[in-house]
């Protein structure tokens, strides 16, 4: 691991100043579950670390109002255990407790979780494999390689690495936003715009500007949340990344769907909202057949590779099952 110098500011203002003073080669450390892991692999080689765990002001959780407000340093385990979240937004709660292990959820912050980096083995494990995300311009070993876990949506000739997180997938289904703070003040970004598709420069993963820190996540406390689920299919029953996942929410009026949300995980380079599939649900009565048809719409434009084509069939079934679970709670 490359050596680095370490700073631990005690307030947000100090953290912004420290991050700015550090400049290029400086990274923020929150839970550390991604960053420290990738530093051990030499994929991340920061020269300076700003440890923001002393910023107690960013650890608040408030689910009492018209908007759910989570400080960026709230830990995944604490948010997953919030009673109102579990009752009224089961998809958000499930997306958290079905991720990682309790040890990691006790460590990992929500802000850091949104920025979790891909599990693409060619990204993580370095030479001799090419990876445009790790080493821009070197090529992509996954496109013709072992791409069982790689993206069906949002890929490019430069990168098909899957966005690995769960919580962001559930957040975009509910039109959540993040507030960020930087040297030029605060701004708000929809979570659905936070991540960049790889295009020609897959190393640029988010729209965050240098020096910006995610400070909170806000979710409209919409009634559609109650009829929701985060349905996550994994290679083992627990403690694994999604092979395919779906955040689904429906609100029913007189037995037909009045509002529907659908977002997909494990299958795209960014958290993926399936809007056409959502629209197809409005005004329908949900059955296994109609829900399966929605799943087929969601995966209609999938671009498959040698080893991941199975996810089209699996994905349509995951969407079906997610919608049926969600409607059972609506």
């Amino acid at each position: 691991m490359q050596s680095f110098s370490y700073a631990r500011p005690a307030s947000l203002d100090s953290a912004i100043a420290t991050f700015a003073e550090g400049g290029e080669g400086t990274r923020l450390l929150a839970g550390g579950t991604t960053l420290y892991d990738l530093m051990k692999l030499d994929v991340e080689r920061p020269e300076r670390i700003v440890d923001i765990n002393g910023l107690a002001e960013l650890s608040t959780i408030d689910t009492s109002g018209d908007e759910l407000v989570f400080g960026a340093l709230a830990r995944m385990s604490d948010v997953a255990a919030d009673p109102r979240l579990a009752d009224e937004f089961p998809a958000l709660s499930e997306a958290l407790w079905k991720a990682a292990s309790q040890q990691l959820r006790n460590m990992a912050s929500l802000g850091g979780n949104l920025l979790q980096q891909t599990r693409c083995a060619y990204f993580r494990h370095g030479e001799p494999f090419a990876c445009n995300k790790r080493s821009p311009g070197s090529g992509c070993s996954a496109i013709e390689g072992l791409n069982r876990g790689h993206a069906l949506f949002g890929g490019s000739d430069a990168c098909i690495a899957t966005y690995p997180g769960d919580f962001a997938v559930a957040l975009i289904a509910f039109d959540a936003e993040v507030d960020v703070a930087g040297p030029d003040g605060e701004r708000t970004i929809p979570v659905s715009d936070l991540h960049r598709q790889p295009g020609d420069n897959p190393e640029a993963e988010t729209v965050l500007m240098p020096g910006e820190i995610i400070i909170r996540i806000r979710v409209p406390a919409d009634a559609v949340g109650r009829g929701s689920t985060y349905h996550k299919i994994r290679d083992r029953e627990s403690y694994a990344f999604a092979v395919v996942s779906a955040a689904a929410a429906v609100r029913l009026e007189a037995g037909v769907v009045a509002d529907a949300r659908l977002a997909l995980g494990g299958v795209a380079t960014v958290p993926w909202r399936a809007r056409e599939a959502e629209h197809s649900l409005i005004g329908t009565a949900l059955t296994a057949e109609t829900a399966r048809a929605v799943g087929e719409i969601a995966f209609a434009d999938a671009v498959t590779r040698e080893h991941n084509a199975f996810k089209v069939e699996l994905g349509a079934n995951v969407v079906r099952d997610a919608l049926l679970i969600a409607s059972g709670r609506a």
Partner: protein
Amino acid sequence: MSDDRKRTIEKRPWSITRRAVLASGSAVGALAAFGLKTPAMAQETTPAAPAAFLPRVLVSFAVNGVTQDIDLDPRTSLLDALRETIGLTGTKKGCDHGQCGACTVHVDGRRVASCLTLAAQVADREITTIEGLGDDEALHPMQQAFIDHDALQCGYCTPGQIMAAVACVHEGHAGSEAEIREYMSGNICRCGAYPGIVAAIRNAAQVMEG
């Protein structure tokens, strides 16, 4: 814990750290950040000023009730600090990437993967390791239950399993076999002693809650 295992690492002359701090011109902020506060220092800290970047860190935290003041390379994991610097080798290094759970310890009562925790992150916190669970008179009920239920074969994952299991009970996640399996999924046992582990946790939970 026996007296010979209770030890406070000799406070090293902090010349390296002091030199770095003085060079940075922000000694007060830097010291305050590492829990080495004095009343005078606390008053002088400017909230919006940048914190100093330090090539070494002087960290103070408690391990099993004993305060440790250690001077370390900021790259050092809590796991390596426990094993290599403090000499408590009960906590095991498995994957060193947060995937296996062998390194599980408690920080302020919450279970974490010590391999993915920088030692510098736990300044002022209270760490509990497997060595601090029982005492000279008796094993912790979870340790006893692991023996009673034959919940191990090679034993390498066991300290992490037990630390995770104690937290699992305290969190209220040991209510059923299914819940135990879900909330213990971060601890891998390559010997496959899972049936015994689950039985031990169910049993110990009754003792701990009784």
